[in-house]
């Protein structure tokens, strides 16, 4: 097996380059006192000084911390309880509820935010119905820090649910049965046995949600603007507007700050993954334990879960749908009079919008397939390869994880500017695809890895002993066995790419439009009609992808 591994080393090097180039250029730019393409730019810490002296930056940092802590405090307990209810109890409807619970992960945050504005904003349809029913305006303000925190918390419950439920499943039901025999009732079992048992998963997903709080962009952008609310990512986004000139060095500094917070969190996450394994030492027998009974609380639980789904999915999606199909909206407008398909017809008149829709679909399908092929190549190259190169790649893969999409898009934009030979690619979807693939590298690799783990080492070893070469084994044994896993990964990558909006923002140019980045830029211009039409198309694409994934039985574990 020890023929020169230059092919694999090459793969690691190329991947490393794709990952470190954007990182490198951001770091480099932050240490200059002017955009890097200006000949007068020289090394200096002025950019850092400027940003750290800016009161808006500190305000943004404060708001980001509040949102991150708040959403974690909301999502972790609720996600844990939800996992317990679905996996361990006899809550009615839990079988069909499960796929529905994961929908919030795949809806684009800009679409969700937009939907909330349409539903719960000052002239939202829920607000106005409330006013009609109760006479006075409801007390909520959709454009506040509290709203952003609550919505962020509610939409991140599925992340906690995913890890906690899969850990609960792995631990088997007989631990709860033992508690029943000892005399404990369902509620007691939940809080003294089941949830403490999955403490590692709760901790892990807590760190994940906190970390995602720093990456929030679409939600605070749309809900934060009217109230002047700033978080780190929107502060970065607005830096261009503030000084009137592209102040790349300041943007780079903010990017470095965000990454400096994100990387330790990513590293912490990795450390926590190992902790879960310790508990799964004695596997239980195959017999399925009976679900715990909840008595009359069953219905309260279902009502609560449905209420959450309604608030997190139905409400914003309904808002988006409504807005897309009405001609105008406001006080005193009656629904029946204003239904129309005009917004969609108008879309067709603008070539950049049409391109955006087509690009989104293409980057999801073709781009997704190519990305999965790349991830598979990298994964297969380093699979069960004990060498420093493989370990290096393991760490390299964590880097894009700590780079939020917005920053990665910016970084790749700079890379294409900086590296002259790559310039023609900048205004083609290829640049977008490269950025997407790098941003989601860790996610894609994890998908492929879990598919590869299903193939026991004996499968490949058996082929070795009868004389097959390594490449033959990959072709004849490994790939066919992970075919289904690859298909599932492709579908999930499709969903992720279609949902994307922040990575494409800085790469937005004639030719690289996608629905997500179009919504972000059009929102600023107030083109609500177009935004709503695009959002509906986006939701449709996501819906089709989800339906296909469910039909094929793809498990959506992140």
């Amino acid at each position, binding site marked *: 097996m020890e023929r020169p591994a230059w092919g694999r080393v090459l793969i690691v090097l190329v991947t490393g380059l794709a990952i470190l180039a954007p990182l490198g250029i951001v770091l480099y730019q932050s240490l200059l006192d002017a955009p890097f393409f200006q000949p007068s730019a020289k090394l200096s810490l002025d950019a850092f000084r400027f940003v750290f002296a800016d009161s808006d930056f500190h305000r943004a940092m404060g708001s980001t911390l509040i949102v991150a802590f708040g959403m974690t405090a909301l999502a972790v307990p609720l996600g844990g309880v939800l996992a317990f209810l679905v996996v361990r109890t006899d809550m009615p409807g839990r079988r069909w509820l499960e796929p529905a619970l994961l929908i919030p992960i795949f809806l684009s945050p800009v679409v969700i935010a937009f939907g909330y504005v349409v539903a719960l904003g000052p002239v939202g349809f829920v607000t106005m119905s409330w006013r009609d029913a109760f006479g006075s305006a409801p007390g909520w303000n959709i454009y506040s820090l509290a709203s952003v925190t609550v919505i962020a918390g509610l939409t991140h419950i599925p992340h906690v649910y995913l890890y906690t439920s899969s850990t609960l499943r792995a631990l088997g039901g007989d631990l709860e*049965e033992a508690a*029943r025999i000892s005399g*404990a009732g369902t509620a007691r079992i939940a809080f003294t046995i089941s949830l403490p048992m999955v403490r590692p998963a709760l901790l892990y997903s807590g760190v994940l949600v906190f970390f995602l709080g720093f990456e929030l962009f679409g939600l605070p952008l749309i809900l934060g603007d009217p109230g002047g609310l700033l978080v780190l990512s929107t502060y970065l986004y607005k830096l261009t507007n503030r000084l009137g000139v592209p102040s790349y060095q300041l943007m780079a500094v903010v990017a470095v700050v965000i990454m400096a917070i994100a990387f330790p969190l990513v590293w912490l996450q990795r450390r926590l993954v190992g902790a879960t394994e310790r508990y799964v030492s*004695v596997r239980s027998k195959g017999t399925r334990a009976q679900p715990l009974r909840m008595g009359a609380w069953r219905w309260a639980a279902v009502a609560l879960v449905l209420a959450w789904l309604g608030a997190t999915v139905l409400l914003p999606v309904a808002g988006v749908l409504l807005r897309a199909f009405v001609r105008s909206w406001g006080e005193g407008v009656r629904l029946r009079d204003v239904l129309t398909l005009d917004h969609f017809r108008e879309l067709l008149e603008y070539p950049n919008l049409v391109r955006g829709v087509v690009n989104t679909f293409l980057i999801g399908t073709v781009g997704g397939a190519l990305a999965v092929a790349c991830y598979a190549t990298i994964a297969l190259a380093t699979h069960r390869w004990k060498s420093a190169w493989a370990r290096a790649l393991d760490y390299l893969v964590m880097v894009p994880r700590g780079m939020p999409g917005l920053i990665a898009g910016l970084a790749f934009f700079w890379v294409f500017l900086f590296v002259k030979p790559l310039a023609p690619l900048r205004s083609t979807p290829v640049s977008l695809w490269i950025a997407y693939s790098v941003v989601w590298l860790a996610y894609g690799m994890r998908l492929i890895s879990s598919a590869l783990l299903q193939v026991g080492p004996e499968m490949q070893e058996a082929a070795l002993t009868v004389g097959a070469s390594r490449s033959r084994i990959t072709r004849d044994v490994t790939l066919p066995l992970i075919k289904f896993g690859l298909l599932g990964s492709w579908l999930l990558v499709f969903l992720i790419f279609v949902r994307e909006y922040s990575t494409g923002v800085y790469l937005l140019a004639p030719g690289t439009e996608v629905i997500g980045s179009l919504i972000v830029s059009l929102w600023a211009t107030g083109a609500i009609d177009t935004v709503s039409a695009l959002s509906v198309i986006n939701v449709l694409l996501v819906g089709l992808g989800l339906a296909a994934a469910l039909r094929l039985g793809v498990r959506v574990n992140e």
Partner: protein
Amino acid sequence: MNDHLVVSDLHKALGENQILKGVSFTLSKGEVIALLGPSGSGKTTILRAIAGLDHPDRGYIELGKRVLFGGPTVVPAEQRGLGLVFQSYALWPHKTVLDNVAYPLRVRKVPAAEVRERALSTLREIGLEGMADRYPHQLSGGQQQRVALARALVYKPPLLLLDEPLSNLDAKLREEARVWLRELIERLQITAICVTHDQVEALALADRVLLLENGRVEQEGAPEDIYERPRTLFAAEFMGSNNRLRGRVVERRGASAKIAGPGWGLWGELRAERREGEEATAVIRVERTRIQQSSGENSVPATLETAVYLGERWDHVFQVGQLRVHAWAPAAIAAEPVFLYFPSDALWIF
């Protein structure tokens, strides 16, 4: 004979599959019974029904004059107060050994000081009080099993249920654990039901064995009864290592009969109703099958096919006509043709 536990006419089906087809038995205080049977015989289902984790479709379960299941009454598992040792031990990984054992007492709202004392004393009983602050993953398999046992005993349940208690232990450990468990049960005068597919385990641990097959009780009795006096072919073949001879009943003389096949004929005890001319199966324990150098009554010529060394004995495989017969000997025999002697009181004809 006070019937501490009464189980009557349990039926359970899972979809099309009838798992239990009417199982009834009783248990006295201080008695240990084993539910013995192959996989799919329903023994674990019975245990879980008594524990309250699964409910039968039909039947009656009463413990100490308290109805646990029957008619309108269904007592949930957490209120039955029984002890159950799971096959996988089901120790809570996030709690220490002491906390695992103390948990049932805490649930019963026993005052904290008393909880610690009682849990420690139970741990002392099973010899693990030094491990009180360890976590389950730091213990060996045998130790984990004892902690699971302690947890089930700490609240002195009227009945202890054991699900395949020795199956997760390796062979050497199993021998020791068998003796240790039996001794503990006798010393604490525990009433227990033990589910197992291992006949040696059942014979060693129980006062009475219930042999289950296909959702029904095939035979019930003391271990020696089941082993020496099986009443059905299944019971005969399930216990011990056997030689099986298929043939035809050619003569009957009271309780004895002669069974014969191509090239052989043997007298044995008739254990089932068979008329002359009917097909039948004869079963004899391998340890009763004797190798002899000369012919005699109830013996047949045999040629040696192969011999396997098992340590304490040699397992010889002979050819008798078209049958394969095993016989044991402390040393390997020479390969000349020999005779196999089947004592007629040990040869059971079904």
